[in-house]
């Protein structure tokens, strides 16, 4: 039973709740949930490398932003078809991740954090200088993307289930990757890189591929995000957003570990983190304009109370 709870219990409960949401939620709550789910997809992709491979990327928002700009720029150029734009967005973010990852992965620890920040910042400044596409003001989408020529994504229900479906697919993919031989190498290299090398495995290509896949998934979440807000902005690529994603992943890992239902490197925990952070922010900011004065100490308490249990997550 615990084993079941650890692997499948938490995500199953969360997905069932999300799938049932249209039964009780109004359209605003649905769009709030869509936002949470889109961040969850980005958080799950970040957790693949952060929790799975121990690589803390501080430039993940840039990958999400590249995906968003992919959709925005294509639409500005007259391509509204999601079946074209979404794969392009994923490819662009994935290739950016591969190119920058190839260099970043030569470093470790905090150096890796900072070099990914550097590449993220470069992407941010490039987005800011794209004056043909709104520069700093950002770019409005004419409408949501078409799917096979249909206006499918424009209905709140259809959008909800589309996002939910892609989120589930992303979570399944990341879960499968981490459970597969490939993921075993990633997790092992996080645990004890020297041992892994002595077994004849060079972690570099595994990490690079994982980074690329995480980039593509982040790009997908960015593409969805552009559709949700019908707007793309350089602010999507800012380091603040990267920090928020890290907070979601780590807080989710710690919260899930405290519930004995997961930890870092488990898609269900990242999903929990994103839902918690987005919904808590919304709830607290409804209460008071100064909600951060409550939210900040909550994070501190989570860490202090969570203790070392979070490390007992999937490794």
């Amino acid at each position, binding site marked *: 039973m615990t084993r079941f709870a650890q692997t499948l219990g938490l995500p199953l409960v969360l997905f069932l709740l999300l799938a049932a949401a249209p039964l009780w939620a*109004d*359209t*605003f*709550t649905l*769009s*709030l949930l869509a*936002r949470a789910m889109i961040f969850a997809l980005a958080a799950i992709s970040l957790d693949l490398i952060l929790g799975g491979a121990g690589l803390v990327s501080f430039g993940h928002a840039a990958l999400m932003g590249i995906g968003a700009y992919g959709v925005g720029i294509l639409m500005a150029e007259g391509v509204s078809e999601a079946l074209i734009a979404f794969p392009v967005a994923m490819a662009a973010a994935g290739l950016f991740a591969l190119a920058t990852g190839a260099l970043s992965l030569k470093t470790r620890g905090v150096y890796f954090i900072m070099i990914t920040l550097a590449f993220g910042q470069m992407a941010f400044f490039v987005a*800011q*200088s794209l*004056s043909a596409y*709104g*520069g*700093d*003001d*950002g770019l*409005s989408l004419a409408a949501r993307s078409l799917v096979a020529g249909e206006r499918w994504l424009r209905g709140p229900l259809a959008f909800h289930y589309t996002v939910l479906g892609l989120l589930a697919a992303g979570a399944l993919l990341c879960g499968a990757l981490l459970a597969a031989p490939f993921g075993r190498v990633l997790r092992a290299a996080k645990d004890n890189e020297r041992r892994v090398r002595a077994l004849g495995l060079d972690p570099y290509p595994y990490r690079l591929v994982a980074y690329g896949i995480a980039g593509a998934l982040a790009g997908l979440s960015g593409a969805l*995000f552009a559709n*949700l*807000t*019908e*707007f793309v*902005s350089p*602010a*999507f690529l800012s380091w603040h957003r990267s920090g928020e994603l890290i907070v979601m992943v780590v807080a989710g890992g710690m919260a899930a570990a405290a519930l004995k239902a997961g930890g870092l490197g488990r898609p269900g925990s990242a999903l929990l983190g994103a839902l918690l952070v987005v919904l808590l922010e*919304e709830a607290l*900011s*409804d*209460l*008071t*304009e100064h909600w*951060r004065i409550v939210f900040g100490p909550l994070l501190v308490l989570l860490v202090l109370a969570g203790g070392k249990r979070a490390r007992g997550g999937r490794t």
Partner: protein
Amino acid sequence: MRCGVQSCRAGLAALAIAVSAGVAAADPVKVGLVATLSGPSAVLGQHMRDGFLLAVKEMGGTLGGQPAEVVVVDDELKPDVAVQKVKGLIERDKVDFVAGVVFSNVMGAVVKPVTGAETFLISGNAGPSTIAGAGCSPFFFSASYQNDQNHEVLGQYAQAKGYKKVVLMAPNYQAGKDALAGFKRYYKGEVADEIYTQLGQLDFSAELAKVAAAKPDAFFTFMPGGMGVNLVKQYRQAGLAETVPFLSAFTVDETTLPATGEAALGFYSGAAWAPDLDVPANKAFVAAFEKEYGYIPALYAAQGYDAAKLIASAVKATGGKLTDKDAVRAALKKADFASVRGNFKFNTNQFPIQDFYLVKVGKRPDGKVETMIAEKVFAEDGDAYADKCPMK
């Protein structure tokens, strides 16, 4: 319905209004007020919010005779957060009007979700060219100005003054570029240098050294918020204030003067309003504002105040029947209220036609520093984009 919208979501100021209202009989008018209330630019949103809420309070917690509910939300200066918040305002709180928005990039993000839902959007500040021109909407009204206009004031002034050589400086983003373009629309002399700085830059010593080296007749800048505070102080410290006139827009105003203090004395700005503007409605407004909040209002406060009065005028004219969108729009277009700016009417693109002034930082008799009207530069000025708006 959730626990009293005002108390939960609008913070203390709105709570006070709800209590003082006391008229619960009629259907309340719901307004969502979007303002930047966190981060370094929070003070701009604070001025706008306080101005808006002051107007509602003065009208006894009503707008146009109906009890008012004002839901204040913080856009955090993040466009996607703003979109999320206005969706909440429209879909959950079912507001009749959305008002406010300080920054143009936030406006760019929210204008579609609001006007697309056929909800009236009353800008309390941001006036990007797209919405003034081809992207104008029957549901969008500006209670402020079009972004370029304040810059044009300085361009016109520099031209009229006969300056031969100027240096221009702005942050490297769209509003910064628009600012310099606006200045150059009227200024025809030599531009010795156009400096673009990083957004959020702290230190301008490098740029100011270049300004000093160029020895221009005047310096024009658009440097909002904390950046402007730094620039003003550093401009003074670099010894440039005595030699090169400092022309600016959105750089020295009542949000930054408390921090710059006397360093900004004698600096110029362009605006449609200043606290000492000699209009009866304005005298009353400034006095009440200072009494209520203990600080001098900036133009954001004045615009927020006018936005509330504008909404009130439309509610009153339609007798509170806000479902009749055409009637509301017609009423709004009349701009039948006493603006703190005196002359105020709407152009075809639903942006104001108003007077613009050169204002200069001076000291009041009580020793406080504020912007003061120096001369009128444009009379009854409409913006440059109205022609491109298909609305008639």
